[in-house]
């Protein structure tokens, strides 16, 4: 219920929302949780395993219970304690059926004795086939929390980079004070806080700072910081991870609080913040107490009760009891009493606790049981040896405070136990460049936090060489006194992990089964593996384990907190990639004309290339492909080959360099000539192939395959910078400078001569010649090379003219009965000629395997030469490149089929090789295959059986030379 005149909510702006279909009203400034509590809704969810009723436990992002689906955003597992209320918000509870109040699976709770820690490892094994068919589907359906909407995510997310001198994580008293100190000194500051309202606990407490309330002081500090150009305030931003060299990840919730966000506004932004220094001012989290039946709705942390009261003007109950082991818990009673809310009792486990107020006080007392099926009704208190019943619909518990050490563990830092506060504090220098201030390192008073924030900021600024001074106001400085209170003995179960249903008994059982290592206990019981990652429960569970194994807490150890601090959506971390954004798209200059010719475009590297160019009346790709192959073989075809890598190599050392990276020799290549080259990796296998032209004494241009262009460039730079730095040579990629087109077929020269300013003939431009030409008045390059086996050229012009030249070439070719051809035809043409691609040079083949061992010059060293001579790489039994032709009734060949002796069973031990490339050759009217066969070069003329189990095809093949067509190469020179 609402409390008059309390809270930072704006009562002038009421907001309507629904929860499980019922309508409610809250105010601007509410979270979904505070609005639900204001409407006396206590039951908000169900636990994971036993489907126990669950209520709101906390007022922050560590909430384990109040996880909901925001149905108007299709967003599961939203913490109601973080979700800001907006007009029309619609929320639904999770993990229950048919309803939250009557959940069928709450029957699990009755079965609890048989569902103890690790029960599933010990059963569900019989009968064998039942796991996938029966048990697992049942378990999967019962498990899980919210459900994903199974449609494509419709929202926009973004990522961004930010840089600063000082990143301050958390805007409570320490963080604000640090930011003021650094900001006033002129440092570039980023202040990030997960809350919508900066101020941290100051907004939830009633402490004074100087002459102001803590809330007012925080607001004033925020205004001052907002006015500074050198300070960037990032509210609603959770710093989620600490990474190397001062890099931090942070999630900004940009639009989750807006009823109707603008169209282009992202929902979330994931920031990578690079900070010279960082200060962790993340405060601390209050921990629950493991007393019997401590899991009922209405039982929450004491600090959460104060948050709801002081920040949201909500009393989470009509009659509120307080149970704690430290003085800080008492403040809850004072705040409630001051606000006119009934305090049912203050129960302090310490006999010597000093509490004064107008309410019943039990010191040296324990809560040993509770009642209330769907919400707390009564608590049973043991006091002075007697049990007494207290009526309460809300119990505020405080087991002490845990500094928020999580980020300091992200680089494997182990927090250190501090006995005085019964809590872990960050280890020193756990993250290089990160300092910790305030409650995050166990300083719990407001004054202490303000002073520490200033002190640490001054140290950091000093390190950065920035002069600064601090001006710290006066504030409350109550000493923090606490005694151990981990698990309370009693009849019922005492929960540690509320979401995963891990109880004290489970931890004890794990220890009894010798899962005594803290990691074993965690993994065996699932303690700390829920969505809060043990923020609420780990320390308590550790204390129980320490106790039962007779060890001290520090000796028992801790599990590791890992990124993210609180969960981050995949959409935010992967922002920009949905749809096409995963990788750049590369378009050739002929893309538009190709599309206009209705060519289906396929992905090659990052490029798009035409698959084929359909003509009217053609029904299948094969018809188009066959026509295009015939066209090249009989007339002329045009193909955009600009995607091949082109590297300009210049300098007096160019020739020597090429001799070192290629297996064959390029220093002997004449200017104006082109040579095919083979490049190995240093381990002796083929890296890439291509042609390289010599344009001048000290000037070559190398081509690479499309796929390997980047790899080859990197390799050349490696060889030069790391192995041959003294060679005087420079490389520049010119792939993008030139639009290059293959003109192939008997009429290739006729097409070209129609466009060249100075016509060529066979004498001026023989096979493997290259030179400068003018193409319709534009300077270009011409190479007489062929990947089709035909009389062919590649003509290159500056890319701005590419589209124009492609159109002209196509028009010329069409006038002669030719036209453009695509990747399918290109593949058939090269297969007919036995030319290899990366289907053959797939990283496991040697020059020897592809029959190119004679290209490895004996006269010089080159990359890969030595390792290529290893015994295993020159063994005669290696699989060698062969041609394959169907020789029986079945005419089909399939790339990826394996090769066997005709009579052999198609099993692994009999496999003699495999098919790499297949095409139907209209020229030879049959399927042709390239493949690798054991000792294949010596087996031309033999029969082998190709088997493709996947399609159920078996084809008898004849082994032959891989060059099926025009083996003498007469057509090339024609």
């Amino acid at each position, binding site marked *: 219920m609402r409390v008059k005149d309390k809270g930072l909510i704006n009562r002038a702006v009421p907001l309507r929302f629904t929860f499980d279909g019922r309508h409610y009203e809250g105010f601007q400034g509410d979270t979904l949780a505070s609005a639900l509590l204001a409407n006396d809704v206590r039951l908000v969810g169900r636990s994971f395993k036993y489907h126990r009723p669950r209520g709101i436990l906390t007022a922050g992002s560590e909430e384990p219970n109040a996880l909901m689906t925001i149905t108007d955003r299709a967003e599961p597992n939203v913490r109601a304690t973080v979700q800001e209320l907006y007009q029309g918000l619609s929320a639904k509870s999770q993990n229950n059926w048919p309803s939250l109040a009557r959940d069928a699976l709450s029957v699990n709770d009755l079965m609890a004795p048989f569902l103890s820690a690790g029960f599933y490892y010990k059963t569900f094994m019989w009968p064998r086939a039942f796991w996938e068919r029966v048990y697992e589907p049942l378990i999967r359906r019962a498990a899980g929390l919210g459900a994903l909407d199974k449609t494509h995510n419709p929202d*926009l997310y*973004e*990522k*961004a*980079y*930010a*840089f600063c001198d000082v990143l301050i994580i958390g805007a409570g008293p320490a963080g604000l004070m640090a930011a003021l100190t650094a900001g006033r000194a002129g440092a*570039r500051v980023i202040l990030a806080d997960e809350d919508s309202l900066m101020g941290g606990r100051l907004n939830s407490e009633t402490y004074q700072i100087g002459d102001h309330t803590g809330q007012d002081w925080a607001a004033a500090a925020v205004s001052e910081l907002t006015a500074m150009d050198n300070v960037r305030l990032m509210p609603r931003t959770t710093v989620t991870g600490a990474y190397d060299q001062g890099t931090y990840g942070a999630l900004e919730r*940009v639009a989750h609080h807006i009823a109707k966000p*603008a*169209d*282009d*506004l*992202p929902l979330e932004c994931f920031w*990578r913040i*690079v900070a010279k220094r960082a200060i962790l001012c993340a405060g601390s989290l209050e921990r629950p107490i493991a007393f019997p039946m401590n899991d009922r709705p209405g039982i929450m942390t004491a600090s959460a009760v104060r948050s709801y009261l002081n920040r949201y003007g909500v009393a989470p109950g009509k009659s509120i009891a307080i149970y704690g082991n430290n003085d800080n818990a008492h403040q809850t009673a004072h705040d409630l009493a001051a606000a006119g809310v009934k305090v049912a009792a203050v129960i302090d486990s310490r006999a010597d606790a000093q509490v004064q107020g107008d309410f019943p006080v039990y010191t040296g007392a324990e809560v040993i049981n509770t009642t209330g099926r769907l919400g707390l009704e009564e608590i049973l208190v043991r006091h002075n040896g007697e049990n007494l019943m207290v009526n309460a619909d809300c119990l505020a518990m405080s087991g002490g405070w845990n500094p928020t050490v999580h980020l300091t563990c992200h680089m494997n830092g182990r927090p250190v136990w501090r006995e005085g506060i019964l809590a872990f504090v960050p280890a020193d220098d756990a993250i290089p460049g990160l300092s910790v201030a305030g409650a995050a390192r166990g300083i719990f008073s407001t004054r202490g936090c303000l002073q520490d924030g200033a002190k640490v900021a001054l140290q950091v600024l000093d390190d950065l060489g920035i002069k600064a001074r601090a001006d710290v106001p006066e504030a409350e400085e109550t000493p923090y006194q606490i005694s151990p209170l981990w698990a309370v003995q009693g009849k019922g179960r005492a929960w540690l992990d509320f979401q995963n249903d891990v109880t004290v008994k489970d931890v004890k059982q794990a220890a009894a089964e010798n899962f005594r290592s803290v990691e074993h206990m965690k993994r065996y019981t699932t303690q700390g593996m829920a969505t809060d990652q043990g923020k609420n429960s780990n320390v308590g569970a550790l204390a129980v384990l320490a106790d039962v194994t007779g060890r001290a807490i520090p000796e028992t150890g801790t599990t590791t907190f890992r990124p993210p601090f609180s969960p981050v959506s995949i959409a935010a971390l992967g922002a*920009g990639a949905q749809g096409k*954004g995963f*990788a*750049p*798209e*590369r*378009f*050739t*200059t002929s893309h538009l004309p190709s599309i206009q010719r209705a060519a289906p475009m396929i992905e090659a590297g990052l*490029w798009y290339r035409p698959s084929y160019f359909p003509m009217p009346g053609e029904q299948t790709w094969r018809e188009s492909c066959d026509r295009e192959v015939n066209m090249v073989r009989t007339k002329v075809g045009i193909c955009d080959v600009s995607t091949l890598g082109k590297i*300009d190599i*210049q*300098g*007096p050392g160019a020739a020597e360099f090429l001799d070192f990276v290629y297996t064959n020799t390029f220093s002997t290549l004449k200017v104006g000539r082109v040579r095919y080259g083979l490049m190995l990796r240093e381990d002796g296998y083929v890296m890439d192939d291509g042609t390289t032209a010599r344009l001048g004494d000290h000037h070559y241009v190398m081509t690479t395959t499309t796929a390997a262009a980047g790899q080859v460039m990197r390799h050349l730079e490696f060889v030069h910078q790391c192995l041959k730095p*003294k*060679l*005087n040579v*420079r490389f*520049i*990629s*010119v*792939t*993008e*400078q*030139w*639009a290059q087109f293959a003109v192939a077929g008997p009429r290739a020269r006729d097409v070209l001569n129609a*466009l060249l300013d100075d016509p060529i003939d066979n004498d001026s431009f023989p096979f493997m010649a290259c030179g400068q030409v003018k*193409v*319709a*008045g*534009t300077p270009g390059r011409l190479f007489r090379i062929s990947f089709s086996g035909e009389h062919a050229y590649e003509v290159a*012009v*500056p*890319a*701005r*003219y*590419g*589209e*124009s*030249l492609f159109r*002209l070439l196509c028009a010329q070719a069409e006038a002669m009965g030719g036209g453009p051809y695509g990747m399918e035809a290109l593949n058939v043409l090269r297969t007919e000629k036995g030319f290899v691609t990366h289907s053959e040079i797939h990283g496991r083949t040697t020059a020897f395997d592809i029959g190119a061992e004679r290209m490895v010059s004996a006269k010089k060293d080159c990359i890969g030469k030595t390792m290529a001579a290893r015994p295993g790489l020159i063994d005669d039994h290696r699989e060698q490149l062969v041609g394959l032709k169907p020789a029986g009734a079945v005419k089909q060949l399939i790339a990826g089929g394996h090769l066997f002796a005709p009579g052999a069973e198609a099993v692994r031990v009999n496999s003699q090789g495999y098919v790499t490339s297949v095409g139907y050759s209209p020229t030879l009217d049959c399927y042709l295959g390239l493949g690798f066969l054991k000792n294949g070069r010596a087996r031309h003329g033999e029969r082998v059986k190709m088997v493709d189990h996947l399609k159920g095809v078996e084809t008898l093949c004849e082994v032959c030379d891989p060059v099926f067509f025009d083996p003498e190469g007469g057509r090339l020179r024609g």
Partner: protein
Amino acid sequence: MVKLVAKAPCEGLLPFSYGTVSLSEVTYDSLTSVAPFVGKSKAVADVFKAAGTPMPAVGRATGKDGQRAIWFGRGQVLLAGLTIEGLEGLAAATDQSDAWAVVRLEGENADAILARLIPLDLDKGVFKRGHTARTQVQHMMASITRTGVQTFEIIVMRSMARTLVHELEVVMKAVAARH
């Protein structure tokens, strides 16, 4: 006699603007990469100087709109809209006029837009006018130069022009929606 028709990398894609920021294509008369040979850096610098264009230091661009010398990587300068004679034997000079797409992003919040694409501190106090860097824009290799208080020139491979424009457009809209 037929003539080849030229087409710019961003033709049909630009210009446009969202909020306070506009994106347009920059056309230089020529782009030439100059990579001095081993031991020739000084000689090349002298030629540059003699031609009235100081050789830019690492991470710097010299010149003005339409005529710049941009540091372009290890041992490499990109002459944009400038030609310098007399480099034969001293440097590998390569015509790149058609290899790159160049765009200009201009207006208040230009830096906020780039902060969503580029992993570099572009704060005006750090990355000042005349500063240049080889880096990446999303997943694309890029060169970026601050040519004015809120003006940047971004260069990516020609074939990626469409992706560049698309990425910038998405971010320009998102930043406009925030302000």
